[in-house]
């Protein structure tokens, strides 16, 4: 089979995964929406609206199975993309994005298995669909060989570590944002019905911390692997290239976050804001520096 055929197969797999993710989106949306139930014909129906997830358990399960199926299809898409180009599929921004969506879904499924976080399903599937949608419409480039600087074993090591870290950082960001939102809601009164299934604020707080603490060493490794690679490709291991600078800023921000939590005991709102700030430096690096930035990390293919 030729390279172009493999690339077509990859595209089909990615389109199919998007269809499956869309089904997962509806399943999760139905799960949330239809678990609302009016108890009888009370006049004050609003106050007696019950949130009953047993009714929509089935829909939630469908959502989860679709997420798993979508993950497998996306994984196939990413692998086939690699096969078509004869290399690891991380050569341009389209490929970073589909792999990033894969890592993000993977991080969610891992957290689902470990911490039972199906309430995160809806925001996760929305984020994945947006990422994939942007990837195939705006960022798509034809599958092709790598420029010489990218031809290195470090591509697989450095980029995979960076992408997985990014996926988990963003998941932690989702949790922190949810914390801040629910925290404000709870100050005014009880949670809205749809949010009753989401765990307590304290659990959310712990979860975002665990995610960050789990992946921070990996991010450190990604930066160091990048430095080792830069030494062999560009003759210096650190040169304050915009991408390097922002990777450093992200590292510093998360380091401050971990210190603030562990040593001076920041919890809750302040910790969540710091987590969001750190995550946004990662996003800025990915979007702004890749597309508008100058420097040596300009592989977006745009």
């Amino acid at each position, binding site marked *: 089979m030729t390279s172009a055929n493999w690339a077509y197969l990859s595209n089909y797999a990615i389109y199919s995964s998007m269809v499956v993710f869309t089904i997962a989106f509806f399943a999760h949306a139905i799960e949330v929406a239809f678990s609302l139930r009016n108890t009888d014909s009370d006049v004050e129906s609003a106050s007696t609206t019950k949130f009953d997830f047993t009714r929509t358990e089935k829909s939630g399960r469908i959502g989860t199975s679709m997420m798993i199926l979508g993950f497998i299809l996306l994984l196939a898409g990413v692998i086939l993309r690699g096969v078509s180009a004869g290399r690891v599929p991380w050569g341009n921004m389209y490929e970073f994005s589909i792999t990033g969506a894969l890592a993000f879904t993977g991080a969610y499924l891992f957290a689902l298995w470990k911490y039972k976080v199906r309430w995160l399903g809806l925001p996760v599937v929305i984020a994945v669909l947006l990422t994939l949608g942007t990837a195939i419409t705006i960022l798509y480039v034809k599958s092709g060989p790598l420029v010489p600087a990218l031809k290195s074993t470090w591509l697989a090591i450095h980029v995979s570590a960076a992408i997985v870290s990014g996926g988990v950082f963003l998941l932690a960001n989702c949790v922190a944002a949810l914390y801040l939102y629910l925290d404000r809601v709870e100050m005014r009164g009880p949670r809205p019905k749809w949010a009753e299934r989401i765990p307590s604020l304290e659990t959310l707080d712990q979860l975002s911390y665990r995610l960050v603490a789990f992946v921070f060493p990996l991010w450190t490794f990604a930066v160091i692997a990048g430095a080792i690679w830069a*030494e062999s490709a560009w003759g210096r291991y650190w040169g304050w290239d915009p991408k390097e*600078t922002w990777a450093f800023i992200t590292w510093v921000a998360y380091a401050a976050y971990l210190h603030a939590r562990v040593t*001076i005991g920041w919890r809750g709102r302040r910790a969540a804001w710091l987590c969001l700030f750190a995550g946004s430096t990662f996003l800025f690096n990915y979007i702004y520096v890749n597309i508008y930035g100058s420097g040596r990390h300009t592989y977006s293919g745009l």
Partner: protein
Amino acid sequence: MSAVNELNTRGSFRWIWRQLTSMRTAIILLLLMGFAAIPGSLFPQRNQNPMRVQQYFTDNPGLAKFLDRLSIFDVYSSPWFSAIYLLLFISLIGCVLPRTIDHLRTLRAVPPLTPKYLEKMEFYSVVATDKSSALDRAEAYLRASHFRVRREESSISAEKGYIRESGNLLFHLSLILILVGVGVGGLLGMKGEAIINVGDRFINTPTSYDSLSFGKFQGEGSLPPFALTVKSFTAKYDLQTSAPMDYTLTVEAANPVGSAPKTQVIKVNHPLTYGNTNIYLQANGYSPVVTVRNKSGDLVFKGAVVFLPQDGNLTSIGAIKLPDMSPQIGFVGSFIPTYDRSKSRGAFSSFPEVLDPRLLLSVWEGNLGLDTGNPQSVYRLDTSKMKRLGLKQLVLGESYDFGEGSITFNGYTPWVNLQIVDDPGKLYSLLGATLAILGLLASLFTRQRRIWIKVGDRVEIAGLAKNGAPGLEVEIRVLKNLLEEK
């Protein structure tokens, strides 16, 4: 100085020291360093792209001058950036060293005494077991699972997970090692670049370089005495996108000069290494080969002239200066490896390999300005005091008679830009980075916890987990079951 004053000075110094080494200050400095790094990614930096800095000065002279006073174009060597990271590292050392000493002491120490009232501790429960043998059995179990055990008359205090603090300290000490590596590289290193035509020889002496800089404590005599002869350079490009696919440089290298040369291949991710010195392939381009004769037909110049690429298809520009002709003659040229033409762009290159080469020349007569003392780019001609004699597009082998003489486009040769770097500090940094990761893993994934067993009227068990680390409850239940022989 009076005694009171001295006390005050010492007191305030101690106060400053305590503030500086406090955790809060460290976090503020850490975040500050993050913010301080931002301008360097938004404004062009001298050490990365001096041309763009110059462009900035041309575009906004007033603003640029103001920003330059704030070191915005040299952020990472600016006084304020240095101040932040130096303060941060002083704070780090002040925080980590005392803790290391403490930790080294506790490494040999036994766990603290069993608290008086276990009921107040976590996961307290009463064990239904034989009192006389309970402590022996518990000790055997705890020792087997690598707890550090303190046996008292009627109780056991056991602790595990010291490696958490060891890892934490190792991580922070390693950061200092990375900084030492950066410092060593900056003070004792060397970095230079040289453009060499294929076929030419490069001898590693200061005069062979186009640009060269040494660390503060490094002299010019320190260059390793090697010589390279550039044998061939091949570049492969994607036919559709012109994107480069492969660069291969073959050199004959003699180290030291005069020894038997060896054939070596240099690629983008595979530098040639002599000790701490690495030789990198950084860029490539074309040098058109021309012959210039004067009016009477005497040879004035023959050779390859390095032109600088302007785009991905290697449309290249350069200048040829002939100060020995009278009047002085200069050429401004474009070399086009694969000729194409469009209405909007004029002549341009449509592919980076040489398929249909052209040399576009404009000929100038007058004062080249080489004796003014002002440094001049070899790739540009200052035509302010010159008059244009003519304009010509040459194909391979073609000559052009411009009145004062003639020029022939004989051919071309590729050139490569070698970057030669000696960084004696990088191994320290690499070691520091590796240890930092190991320390980080140890500190983030180890749980530190204590277990106590007390035999009084009854047998009691309880524990304490640092930072609320999970899993202790299970551990205590397992031990309890064991003692109860379930």
